[in-house]
């Protein structure tokens, strides 16, 4: 299924904007994000932008780090119909099952590459929503993989950190070549 561009109405009435997604090996992706303390209207606007950016890029998850905002915020939508956005502010997780899941992960910051990465299959998420309310959620399968992938972004970590140096360097040089051409 090709991503369908959805129209979102902003909750704050401000104009939404598509943000630019940083691409590997941009060093800004290595920044460690700081916790969110202000749950005001500027946070809601940012989340709207993140959702818009994620949907338009055909992603299933986006971390604020990827649009060069270094706060601990994620948006995720793993649904088939792409109509179930989830927002996580200051998320952390604990592993609830030692069993691992191998998944071919792709990343909006590393476009066009997929690598098999093994992560815990079931995790419990501790997070706040966009209003600052705390919640817990047990996630498994694709949602668990996606949340762990996005929390990695907030810690300056990328999926290429899990694969061999040889593969990482190959991806780096291919992307650099592409970025130079643009």
């Amino acid at each position, binding site marked *: 299924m090709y991503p369908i561009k959805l129209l979102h109405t902003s909750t704050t009435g401000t104009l939404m904007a598509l943000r630019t997604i940083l691409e590997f090996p941009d060093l800004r992706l290595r920044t460690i994000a700081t916790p969110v303390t202000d749950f005001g209207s500027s946070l809601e606007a940012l989340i709207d932008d993140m959702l818009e950016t994620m949907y338009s890029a*055909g992603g299933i998850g986006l971390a604020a780090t990827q649009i060069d905002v270094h706060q601990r915020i994620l948006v995720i939508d793993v649904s088939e119909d792409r109509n179930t956005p989830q927002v996580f502010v200051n998320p952390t997780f604990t592993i609830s099952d030692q069993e691992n899941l191998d*998944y071919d992960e792709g990343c909006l910051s590393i476009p066009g590459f997929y690598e098999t990465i093994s992560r815990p299959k079931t995790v419990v998420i501790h997070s706040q929503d966009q209003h600052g309310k705390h919640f817990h959620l047990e996630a498994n399968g*694709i949602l668990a993989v996606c949340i762990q992938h996005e929390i990695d972004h907030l810690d300056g970590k990328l999926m290429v950190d899990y694969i061999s140096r040889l593969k990482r360097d190959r991806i780096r040089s291919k992307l650099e070549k592409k970025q130079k051409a643009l």
Partner: protein
Amino acid sequence: MQKTLNSRATAALILADLLNSKGSLSTALIKLRDRSDFPLIQELSFGCCRWYWLIQSQLEQFLNHPLRNKDRDIRCLLMIGIYQIREMGVADYAIINETVEAARELNKPWATGLVNGVLRAYLRDETLNSSKNKECPNTHPEWLSRLIKNQWPAQAITVLNANNLRPPMTLRINTQKISRMNYLNLLKKQNLAGSFGRTETAIILDAPCRVDVLPNFKEGFVSIQDEASQYVPGILDLKPKQYVLDACAAPGGKTCHMLEHEPTLKVTAIDVNSSRMQRLTDNLDRQNLSAKTIVADVKDTKKWWNEQHFDRILLDAPCSGTGVIRRHPDIKVLRTYDEVLSSVEIQKNLLKNLWKCLRPGGLFLYTTCSILREENETQIANFLKSTDTAKCESIKINWGVECEYGRQFLPDVSKSGHNPDGFFFSLLRKI
């Protein structure tokens, strides 16, 4: 995180990896089990292997020059496109759209025109489409079809055609826990239909289903096992409390079956692969059975054998798998005759080294899922020549071709589902 690749692109990458000789199709698919489009990916990759040689020769007619090696994924994608047109009842425009989209997702936008062009040209070519129900001559690699024709002249056409069919899903009922009739009734309640096989434990399902919908699977009432393997305990003539070696045991289908058949047996199960051995242990646990399990190279008897002779030995030897092509169609794509010869060498060593572990008067059952004489009859004939303590016993069962040194099951095209895998049995007694 980016969306996962679409089903066609994923299947194309699996095939490309396979052609790059990285493992087997079933292991490549294991890690995708949790995906919602898993059945489609499985259908595309299995189907493409099943018809690989035919589709490949047809594809060549549409390519002006061959694709570069680094574009193997695009060649696989084209083959998947052709497979869908030939074998799957999907609307043509949908096949073309999705397959073109897959080329884009594979990061090769230059190939979208090629995919579109080739698939449309294929659709226009009536002669190729209409040939799909006729007998297809080139569905096997040349060396394999030649061997089959030479070794089984009377059955060759049937065997080659049977290798292109989908296998039945066959169950083994643990008759210690439930009768076959009662289990068939349990299946009926789940709207699953099946019929009795020729062995006392087999039920053949009319249509395959997921394992987790089988009634009382977790309680060990039932296992998945082809009917050919279910002949093993009967042929081995197992008696209470006998000391039995299962030499290449994992994943343990036959180990469990022997114990279900005769629960007082003392079975030693050995396999060299520790992760497959884990599956054997899981299977034993599920059925509440116990056996001594050892992870070791079984031909290295010094490492594991305590000099106590076995009453029965089952050697289900590693082989070319040419009897189970319908279950593992990638064998048709990847297997070479050199690999057959190296299996022959492995089997020879296993026979030689394990023979000393059998007590005089004891029975040794040699089996393979191969239909090639090199691994079967000739192997046993050579072994008998090398020792004077062995004699071949005749096997009296109601299926297969009687050979001089054993019994050969050949794949069959019977629609009723009563067609076990290609399999070879040879029963030897120590004098």
